[in-house]
């Protein structure tokens, strides 16, 4: 018994030795601290003072994007959109005769980092212009930094209604409409149907997401006003992966219309669930899932995409100015069809470019005032804004037809007159 115990102690002899050594450490720490202070010291300028811009240098546009982490997917697309824009602008001589440089930092989908990034871009790197980031989770705190520092913040995403309740003056959302108005175009189409052809009953499952849920919510209210009976509503969490229970509850109610607030995978999941139950509604609407072209058709099977409606801010075939150039440049650079997120980013940059060129300088207040007063033509169509940066336009209503995407509304921008209605049964 004795033998096993004392072995403990051999390395511990010197517990009292360390006392005098602390002094050395203390001295080291002081030196370190002093060095740190000196190193970080730089003769600065008040954040409110703007430096006279050097007109020979390139215009630097600062962006922080979620290139890694949860939002890496849209973040990466946005980066491509911004870079396509930069290359196109520079090829045409830049802005105000100056070349454009984009300074992109990765915020790893983290709020702290996005705040630090924009603070750094504005106050340290002194970028000339800002562009927004992706997902409202990041745009909320990022736009606050821009607002604090009086920088125009054109965001390609972040259409949650609350974004525009903060009375920010430098914020502009570069998409045609905010979430609650996304569905208007679909409701208009329903209204255009003869009374007898309209759906009688509807089910409204939606992901609990700041973009998806308000779309479905506002659609439900508008359709209820039209007399469409609501037979099912549910809000499922973002991490829901099993849609069998939702699908079986919906199938039990046999609604004519299923309108789902679907971000992506949940849209595929519900279709699969419905197929397993062999329930096919007359009309199927999903918010953004079907816009992920290839991935969506892979997920549900091309045959099953037939007749699915969705709303979208941009269409590859649209004849808006520069759109064909954008699609060509993107396809050339990345050998893939551009995603909506990339187009939105491109459009945001177009907005900033137009204002800067019209104002003739990078004066943030002038750019802001100009944007509040004018309309900008983008690849998404014309964009204009209310006082808090809320766009006043409308989305496109798209539909999968024969394995391709067609715009079916509004009529003036439709790519086809045909509308598949009712949706054929699952294959």
């Amino acid at each position, binding site marked *: 018994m004795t033998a096993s115990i004392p072995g403990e102690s051999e390395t511990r002899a010197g517990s009292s030795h360390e006392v005098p050594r602390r002094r050395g450490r203390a001295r080291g720490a002081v030196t370190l601290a002093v060095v740190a202070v000196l190193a970080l010291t730089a003769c600065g300028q008040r954040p409110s003072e703007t430096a006279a811009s050097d007109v020979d240098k390139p215009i630097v546009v600062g962006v922080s994007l979620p290139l*890694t*982490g*949860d939002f*890496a*997917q849209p973040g990466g697309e946005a980066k491509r959109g911004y870079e396509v824009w930069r290359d196109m602008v520079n090829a045409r001589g830049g802005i105000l005769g100056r070349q454009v440089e984009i300074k992109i930092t990765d915020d790893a989908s983290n709020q702290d980092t996005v705040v630090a990034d924009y603070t750094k871009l504005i106050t340290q790197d002194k970028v000339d212009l800002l562009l927004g980031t992706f997902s409202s989770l990041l745009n909320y705190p990022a736009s606050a930094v821009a607002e604090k520092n009086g920088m125009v913040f054109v965001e390609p995403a972040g259409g949650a209604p609350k974004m525009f309740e903060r009375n920010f003056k430098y914020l502009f959302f570069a998409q045609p409409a905010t979430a609650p108005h996304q569905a208007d175009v679909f409701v208009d189409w329903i209204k255009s149907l003869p009374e007898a052809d309209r759906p009688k009953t509807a089910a409204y499952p939606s992901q*609990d997401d700041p973009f998806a849920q308000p779309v479905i919510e506002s659609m439900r209210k508008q359709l209820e006003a039209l007399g469409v009976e609501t037979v099912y509503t*549910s*809000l*499922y*969490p973002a*991490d*829901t*992966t*099993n849609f*069998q*229970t*939702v699908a*079986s*509850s919906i199938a*039990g109610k046999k609604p004519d219309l299923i309108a789902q607030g679907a971000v*992506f*995978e949940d849209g*595929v*999941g519900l279709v*699969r669930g419905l*197929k*397993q*139950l*062999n329930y096919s509604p007359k009309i199927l609407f999903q918010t953004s899932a079907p816009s992920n072209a290839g*991935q969506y058709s892979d*997920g549900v099977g091309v045959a099953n995409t037939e007749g699915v409606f969705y709303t979208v801010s941009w269409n590859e075939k649209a004849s808006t100015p520069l759109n064909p150039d954008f699609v060509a440049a993107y396809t050339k650079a990345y050998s893939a069809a551009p995603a909506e997120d990339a187009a939105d980013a491109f459009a945001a940059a177009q907005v900033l470019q137009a204002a800067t060129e019209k104002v003739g300088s990078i004066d943030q207040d002038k750019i802001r005032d100009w944007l509040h007063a004018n309309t900008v033509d983008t690849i998404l169509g014309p964009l204009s804004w209310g006082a808090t940066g809320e766009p006043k336009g409308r989305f496109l209503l798209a539909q999968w037809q024969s394995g391709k995407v067609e715009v079916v509304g509004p009529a003036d921008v439709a790519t086809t007159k045909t509308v598949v209605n009712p949706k054929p049964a*699952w294959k």
Partner: protein
Amino acid sequence: MTQLVQAIILGLLIGGVYALMASGLTLIFGVMQIINIAQGAFLVLVAMLTWWLWQRTGIDPIVASLVTTPLMFGFGWVVYRLLISRIRGSSASMSVLLTFGFALVIEGVLNVVAGNRFRSAAPSYFEESYRVGDISLPKTQVFGFLAAVVVLGVLYFVLTRTWTGRAIRAATQNPSGAALVGVAATGTAALAFAIGSATTGVGGSILSVLYPFFPASHYDWISRLLGIVVLGGMGSLPGALVGAGILGLAETLTATYGSLGWSTLVFYVVIMVVLLIRPQGLFGAKLREDAV
């Protein structure tokens, strides 16, 4: 009524799969008192592997587990030898931190290699169902459940009928006694860890069909599995079965009759209630605290 029966059947089918996934975790804990936080990441890793195999060769995902299971067995063995065995003897919390770190590494590697997007394997039958009256039984769920039952059966057989299995069980119940009769503690531990990892071979294959996954999905899975294990009693295999059944049912029933939003919370509520009433879990008698 149909809805209720449907929900119960779905719940039990899901519960079977959960039981399989949790069995490895509880086995590892039982033998070496290590909570392998990376178990969820192992599942996602296998799911990714299965998906890749399925993409490349078109092999049925569940059949692919014939490949992934031995792989994971070896993987578990190596992980034990290289990582876990280094911290045997230090406090249990260190193993939690180590396996947590390892889970993050797996997530990170999958992020870099495979990208941060949802995937799911879709064999031909995956949108088909068996229909019994008004009840529909999705084939994927049924196959997944059957595979889980088979694997659990094999596991049971291995643990009760083979020398190795008995050695593992002996080590679970009485480590020092097992050592006395010649069961080498380290060897047994490595074996148990390897077997525990191997269960994710089938579990992950089923996951790849039943649930879309992406690298960070492992948090969802590990918290679910831990819930099952805490509920059933840590280290108890029958406990894991019962816990998985209860939580599978609780999940589908709340999703059907309550709201989906709250259905995940049910997991945590059940766990807290169990801990409040019966801190050792349903079958936790085995986890007797040693003499003070």
